[in-house]
């Protein structure tokens, strides 16, 4: 069978169950000592890639991320879920990156590794940007199938069912292509202990981000300010309809 390599881009994010707090200064969220994990949509993308390999449609799954050294842990989890090898495009401690920077790094890796398919999560749960896959496809000038809820490979092409506002749309894209995974694509597996052990021995390559053309300096997308929503005020019981209307008018609601 012809070699069909899948490149999966993943992101290390604050775990979905954590109550996120704004750090003093209002310019970032608190990340020190906070639980991080693999972005749920990236997990779904990775699961799809591993299933393609298990079904014999793909021959190798390479997982990659742009991040600081801490992202190595995330890559090991991805390897435990079934990826064959991993690449860390390493940023310096404290450096930040946005969708454009990630897309530049993944594009450089794609040129190096020559995958037929790039799978990403549709968005990260920390910034909800939903841009990386689209920017990457533009840089590489490859077709894109975003919000994928079903993927099937054919010789030289991939059929993608997309979740769009009006319902479901099915596209056939020539390979190589970029796909982003939506929630209903699959249910990702849990890493088991034997696979976690095996993952420790799988290759993990570290490449400085600058070598992949990621520009130094602040990301293109600048975060201006963060603030928590106002605390919830208690409700109030009123005695009559007139009183209710009065209060609503007073609050400017009617």
């Amino acid at each position, binding site marked *: 069978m012809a070699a069909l390599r899948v490149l999966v881009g993943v992101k290390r994010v604050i775990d979905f169950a954590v109550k996120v707090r704004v750090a003093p200064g209002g310019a970032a969220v608190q990340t020190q000592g906070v639980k991080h994990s693999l972005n749920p949509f990236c997990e779904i993308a990775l699961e799809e890639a591993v299933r393609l390999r298990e079904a014999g449609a793909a021959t190798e799954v390479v997982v990659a991320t742009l991040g600081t050294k801490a992202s190595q842990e995330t890559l090991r989890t991805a390897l435990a879920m079934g990826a064959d090898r991993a690449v860390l495009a390493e940023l310096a401690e404290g450096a930040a990156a946005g969708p454009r920077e990630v897309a530049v790094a993944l594009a450089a890796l794609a040129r190096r590794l020559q995958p037929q398919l790039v799978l990403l999560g549709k968005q990260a749960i920390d910034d909800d940007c939903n841009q990386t896959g689209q920017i990457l496809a533009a840089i590489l000038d490859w077709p894109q199938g975003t919000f994928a809820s079903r993927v099937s490979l054919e010789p030289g092409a991939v059929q993608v069912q997309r979740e769009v506002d009006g319902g479901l749309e099915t596209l056939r894209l020539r390979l190589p292509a970029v796909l982003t995974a939506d929630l209903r694509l699959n*249910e990702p597996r849990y890493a088991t202990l034997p696979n976690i052990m095996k993952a420790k021995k799988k290759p993990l390559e570290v490449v400085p981000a600058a070598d992949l053309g990621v520009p130094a300096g602040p990301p293109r997308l600048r975060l201006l300010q963060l603030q928590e929503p106002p605390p919830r005020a208690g409700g109030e019981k009123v005695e009559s309809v007139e009183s209710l209307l009065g209060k609503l008018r007073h609050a400017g609601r009617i």
Partner: protein
Amino acid sequence: MVNAVTAPRQGTAREHDQRHWWEPGPSARAAVACGWSHLKPPLPPDFVQALRAVVGAPNVSTATAVREQHGHDESMHPCAPPDAVVWPQAVGQVQELAALCHRRRVPMVPFGTGTGLEGGVNAVQGGVCFDLSRMDAIAELSLEDFSVTVEPGVTRKALNKHLRGTGLWFPVDPGADASLCGMAATGASGTNAVRYGTMRPNVLNLRVVLPDGRLLHTAGPGRQPRKRAAGYDLTSLFVGSEGTLGFLTQATLRLHPLPEATAVTIASFPGVGAAVACTVQVLQAAVPVARIEFLDEVMADACSRFSGMGLPVAATLLLELHGSRRSLAEQQQQMEEIVQQNGGSSLAWAEGLEEREKLWSMRHNAWYAALALRPGCQGYSTDVCVPISRLPDVVVETKQDLQASSLTGPMVGHVGDGNFHCILVFNSQDPEEAQRIHAFTQRLGRRALAAGGTCTGEHGVGLGKRALLQEELGQEGLDTLRSIKAALDPHNLMNPGKVL
């Protein structure tokens, strides 16, 4: 109405000082025990102020809606609201609040998720409800020791999500997404108990706040050896104590490795007896089955229709196997042979995650599927557990009893443990049917006891099974329990009216 709350017993049960802060006379006491707590005066304002001083005013509530919400669980027992609800944020606050209630002789009721099935949180004597859900730390996760420490606000699903990526899981899975400390308090079990055990063997240590506010670590502070022979087993004493001995403010749990491979299948049988006999044989063949769940034909039909699955209307077993790829293949073969020998249908194995989840959620919706059989009615679940050897007889007799009593009671069960539930669906407004239900459950409880089993395999005693507990343990057993209760809670402040 099936109201199983009874008036307080006279005689030996009242040996210790049970006068509470408002010193009721005997008729008021009886009224209170029946849940008529509105006849009691509310808590004195200075006491409520003292509660606020410990946890802050936003964490104390005497609002009616809040109290009513905390006065019932998922059982049929009528709501018995506490006089106040408090939300401690740390164990030190739990201790201070307990000491305060102890000084003023105010009853205390621990509250986790309110998902119990035996009225365990109903404040039948009023008092203060300690809602522990804001204490939700997960700490001391050790991947090498397979242990983790959780506070009452952590539910079993939240813990397993937290463990994602570690290769470990906590397998005890009662139907609800219950608080783990609450599960420890009721000695909960679930579909995986046949292979992984119930709560009791999976709790290594408990941090308990005693009724007077003292802090007790049942296996010693900061310890979680996998086995110990050091003194009386206090951990096991507090597991299943249903809030009557102290507050379980932290539990150290035993984790298990996730299975490498899992396979699930459904088998239909010509009759209830064949399905149950098949279960017995699977266990005797020492197949390390992970889950073996039974649905009688009424339940199978109800579940199938509720979840749109199209199962045959027959006694059914839902089976799950865990293991490595190779051992799974061996187990599957053994299982197929045994099922065929008992006249079961041929097996189609589901191995993908989505398929397996679909089958199990059909089973987990059993409660709702049963209620859908008679819309507008209420449900009550029985919970007997008998030795495996007696299971076929007890199940068949129970089914005959259901038919003879004209009751709607689809059966579902963790037959691997000898435990099954009749989900009785009845019209609570019809006193005659309620009477038949009550009589049926008494007969069922006694049938289980006569077969050498227990009246409650996993739900607990709570309000409704105290009389059966007496029959099950005998006078000496019950007296011993009362001595222990008197030693730890001499003023009967911890969840009074439950268990004993």
